[in-house]
């Protein structure tokens, strides 16, 4: 029964992929300015229908896609192939240049304390890159460094965000995703912001209780920075000073004095936890320890003081 279900699942997935490939291929043709004749298009459609029948017969699904891709490639005229290749070279060059600019931006404030978000993200990656990792949440705002610097090559490498800029999504979402990843043998990691964790800290207990392995590296910038510019703008319109300086921050956005000791909070709910880490040179070693704990099947949290963004 399980085997039959697996086969059916496979068939549905393969057909979905086939549909996407068809859409992509047709899109590619049109983007490249190639307009297939109705005769040629009919041939292509027949080829696809033939492959679909093969899928429905449940034969050699894996072999179908490469053959289809080859069929699509061979349908492109030579002059268009050259144009695509030229465009590909330009895209590769632009990507390499953008990558270089990204690294230059990441190097700014590299040794700063509080720790830069680029450093936080890359110290984390250095400890997980050899594992079958899955970034289950990146709450708060770390300037999108994981998406800019980590190789996102598998569908589970980045599980996305709340979809509505929802503060409080990160902690529970990461625990839920880590539960799913646990049975698939994947290593779950989250960049956990401080304000986000304050919405539903009880989820820490859930993770410990059910032995859900999750590495939470905190982006603890000690504030709800999401609202800062809105507060600042309204104050400036009225020529009022929004930021009171010191540990006050703009009205209502600072989470300081008292500073929340998230590592103690997590520890009290059964997590392995360390922090607050303020020195960037200490960060790698602590994350390494935490990774070992998570690999043993327990959740671990590293509380890191970070730059705001």
């Amino acid at each position: 029964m399980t085997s039959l279900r697996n086969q059916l699942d496979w068939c549905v997935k393969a057909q979905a992929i086939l549909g996407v490939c068809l859409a992509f291929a047709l899109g590619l043709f049109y983007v490249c300015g190639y307009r297939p004749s109705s005769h040629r298009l009919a041939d292509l459609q027949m080829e696809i229908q033939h492959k679909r029948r093969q899928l429905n017969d449940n034969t050699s699904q894996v072999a179908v896609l490469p053959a289809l891709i080859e069929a699509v490639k061979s349908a492109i005229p030579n002059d268009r192939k050259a144009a695509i290749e030229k465009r590909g070279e330009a895209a590769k060059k632009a990507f390499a240049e953008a990558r270089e600019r990204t690294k230059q931006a990441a190097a700014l404030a590299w040794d700063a304390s509080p720790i830069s978000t680029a450093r936080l993200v890359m110290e984390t990656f250095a400890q997980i890159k050899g594992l079958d990792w899955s970034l289950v949440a990146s709450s708060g705002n770390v300037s999108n460094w994981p998406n800019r610097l980590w190789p996102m090559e598998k569908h589970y490498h980045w599980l996305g965000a709340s979809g509505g800029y929802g503060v409080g999504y990160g902690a529970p979402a990461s625990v839920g995703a880590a539960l799913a990843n646990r049975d698939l043998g994947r290593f779950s990691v989250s960049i956990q912001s401080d304000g986000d964790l304050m919405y539903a800290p009880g989820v820490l207990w859930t993770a410990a209780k059910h032995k859900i392995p999750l590495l939470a590296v905190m982006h603890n910038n000690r504030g709800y920075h999401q609202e800062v510019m809105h507060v600042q703008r309204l104050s400036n319109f009225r020529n009022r000073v929004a930021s009171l300086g010191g540990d006050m921050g703009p009205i209502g956005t600072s989470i300081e004095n008292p500073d929340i000791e998230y590592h103690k909070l997590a520890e009290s709910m059964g997590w392995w936890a360390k922090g607050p880490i303020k020195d960037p040179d200490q960060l790698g070693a602590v994350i390494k320890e935490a990774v070992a704990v998570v690999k043993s099947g327990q959740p671990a949290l590293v509380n890191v003081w970070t730059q705001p963004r």
Partner: protein
Amino acid sequence: MRFVPVSGLAALAAGLVLGCGGALAASAEKGKTAFVQHGCWQCHGFQGQGGVTGPKLAPEPLPLETFTAFVRTSNRTMPPYMEAILSNEDLADIHAYLETLPKAPDPKSIPLLNQ
């Protein structure tokens, strides 16, 4: 004897120039405090390194005139800051602070950025 009043005047003039210069010179130290107090760091980072919420300000900040003009008239995400809430003196100090911030290391020299 003729030279005495001339040299006296010269000394007075030099003193005035130096005195005024001292009063007008921007202070990077005060600028660092103002940078925090006015909340610049919240979008641009404590070292002006920038992020998705605000562009990098340092190293190599814009010239003071351009910098001031932008802060006073911004119509982008950053709201304009009028003199009533951010004085010219504070702005010059902030600029002086930004000028002291060192260049970033070459990313090629950072192993973590070349994994």
